[in-house]
C-alpha cells in the first residue's frame, strides 16, 4: 500500500464528499439566504436582546451577553446546515446510495460536518467583529489566542452535536422541530443571557451537557485577557462534550445503517 493509497486517496474522498454534500444539501448556500444567516440574523438578534435588556434594566446588554449572542451565530449556522443536510439526504433519495456503497461510513458521516465547522467559524468571526464595532465590546485587553482556541473548540463540539442530531432527522424526517429545540436550548441553558447559576439544577445539568456552555466560559475569559492556561479546564470540558457526541453520534449512524439494511427503514 502506497502513501497515496493510505493517505491521499482517503483525504481526497473526504474532501470531495464534504464539498459535494455542502454544495448539494445546504439549501441556505445561495447569496441572499447565506448573507441573511451569517450576517443579518445574528446581528439583529444581538440588537434585539440588547433592546430588551435596556427596556428591562435601563442599561444595554453587557459585553458578556453580547459576546455570548455573537457566538450563538456559530451554533445556529452549524445546526441549521448539518440538520438540513441529513434531512435532504433522505428526502432526495441519496441515503440508500450511501448505505449501499462500500465507502467508509466514518468518512460519510464526518464529511457532512467538515465545511459547516468552517462555516461556523466564519459566522462567529463576523458577528464578533460586529459586536466590537457596533456594540462597542471592549477588546483592549483581549487575549486573541485564547479567543481563537475557544472558537475552534466550540465549533468542534457544535459540529459533533449537530451530526449527532442529524441522525434523529434521518429517523424523524423533519429538521425544523429539532433545530427549534437545539437553538432554544443554546439560548436558554448555556449561560448566554441567563446565568447558569440562576437556572433550576436540572436545567443547569442539561446545560452542562450541551456544546457552547464550557467554551463560552473560556471565550469570555479570553475577551477579558485570560491566557489559555487559565481556561484549560473549560476548553477541555468543551472538547470532552464534543467527543461524547462524536462517539454516540457515530454509533447511532451505524445503527441507522443496520436498520436500513436489515429492515429496509429510512429509505423513503
Amino acid at each position, binding site marked *: 500500500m502506497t502513501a497515496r493509497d493510505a493517505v491521499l486517496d482517503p483525504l481526497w474522498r473526504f474532501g470531495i464528499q464534504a464539498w459535494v454534500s455542502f454544495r448539494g444539501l445546504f*439549501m*441556505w448556500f*445561495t447569496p*441572499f*439566504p*447565506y448573507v*441573511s*444567516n451569517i450576517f*443579518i*440574523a445574528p446581528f*439583529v*438578534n444581538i*440588537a*434585539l*436582546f440588547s*433592546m*430588551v*435588556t*435596556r*427596556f*428591562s*434594566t435601563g442599561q444595554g446588554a453587557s459585553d458578556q451577553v453580547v459576546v455570548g449572542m455573537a457566538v450563538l451565530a456559530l451554533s445556529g449556522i452549524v445546526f*441549521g446546515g448539518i440538520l*438540513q443536510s441529513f434531512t435532504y439526504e433522505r428526502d432526495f433519495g441519496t441515503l440508500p446510495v450511501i448505505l449501499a456503497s462500500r465507502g467508509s461510513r466514518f468518512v460519510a458521516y464526518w464529511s457532512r460536518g467538515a465545511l459547516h465547522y468552517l462555516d461556523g467559524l466564519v459566522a462567529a468571526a463576523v458577528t464578533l467583529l460586529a459586536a466590537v464595532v457596533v456594540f462597542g465590546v471592549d477588546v483592549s485587553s483581549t487575549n486573541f489566542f485564547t479567543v481563537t482556541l475557544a472558537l475552534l473548540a466550540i465549533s468542534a463540539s457544535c459540529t459533533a452535536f449537530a451530526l449527532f442530531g442529524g441522525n434523529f432527522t434521518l429517523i424523524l424526517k423533519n429538521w*425544523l*422541530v429539532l433545530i*427549534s*429545540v437545539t*437553538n*432554544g*436550548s443554546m*439560548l*436558554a*441553558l448555556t449561560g448566554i*443571557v*441567563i446565568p447558569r447559576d*440562576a437556572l433550576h439544577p436540572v436545567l443547569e445539568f442539561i446545560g452542562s451537557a450541551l456544546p457552547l456552555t464550557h467554551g463560552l466560559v473560556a471565550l469570555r475569559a479570553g475577551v477579558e485577557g485570560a491566557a489559555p492556561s487559565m481556561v484549560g479546564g473549560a476548553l477541555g470540558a468543551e472538547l470532552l462534550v464534543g467527543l461524547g457526541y462524536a462517539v454516540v453520534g457515530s454509533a447511532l449512524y451505524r445503527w441507522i445503517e443496520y436498520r436500513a439494511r436489515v429492515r429496509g427503514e429510512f429509505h423513503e
Partner: protein
Amino acid sequence: MRDIRRAVVGAVVQQWLETAQISQFISAVIGQLAAVAVFAWLARQSGRGDVVSAIAFGVVLMVAWRASVFRLGFMVVGSNNQGTLELEMMSRAPMFWIMLGKTLALVSFFALTGLLCFATAVVVGGLAPTTGNPAILAVSLLVTLAAIVALAYVFAPLTFLAGGQAGFMNAVFPVGILLSGFVQPTALLPTFLEVPARLLPTSWATEALMMGLQGESASAIAPGWAASLTLTVATLALTAWMFARCEAVVRGRGAQ
C-alpha cells in the same frame, strides 16, 4: 360579494383544519419557549409589573406573527411547487381573498398557542401582570392582531416574487420582531431603525398596547390605534397589488 365571503370562510375552515394539530402546536411553541423564557427573565430584572406585562402580552403577539409568517411565507411558493397554484388562480374569487382566509386561520391558531407562552412569561417573570383598563386592552389587542395579520400576509406574495429561496425567512424573523416592538418599545430604537419601524402597523399597535398597560387614557392611545389601522389597510392594499403581480407572473411564464 357573496362568492368572496364564501371563499374567505372556506379558506379559513380549510386552513384551520389543516393547521389545528398537536404537531403544529408543538412546533410553534417549542421553538419559541426558550426565547420567551429569556425575555421574561430579563423583564424580571426590572422588578416592574408593567414591564413583565408588556413582555408577557408581547410574546403572544410575537409567537402568533412569527409562526404565521413562516407558514405564509412559503404558502404561495408551496402551491406553485405542488402544482396547485394554477387551480387556485382558476377560482372566481381573487387569490388575495383566499389567502386572506388562510392568514386569518393561521394567526388565530397561533395566537391561541401563544397563550402558553404568556403563561410561561408570567411564571418566569415572577410578577403579577398589570392590564390597565380592560376595555382599552381588548381594543389594543384587536388592533394589534389586525396589524399582525397584515404584516404576516404581505410575505405570502413577497416570498414568491423574491424567488422563494430556502432560508429567506431567517433574517425576516428577528428584523420583524425588533421593528414591530413586540418585546421592547419602538421608541427605544435608534433613529435609523425607528424610521422604518414607524412604517409598520405593528409598531404603532404594540406601542398603543404598552401605553394601555401603563394606564394611559383612550384619548392618548387613540392616535396610535388610528396610525396602526391606517397602515394595516395600506399593507393589505400592497399585498393585493403583489398578488396581482404573482398572477401576472404565473400567467406569463406558467407555474414552475
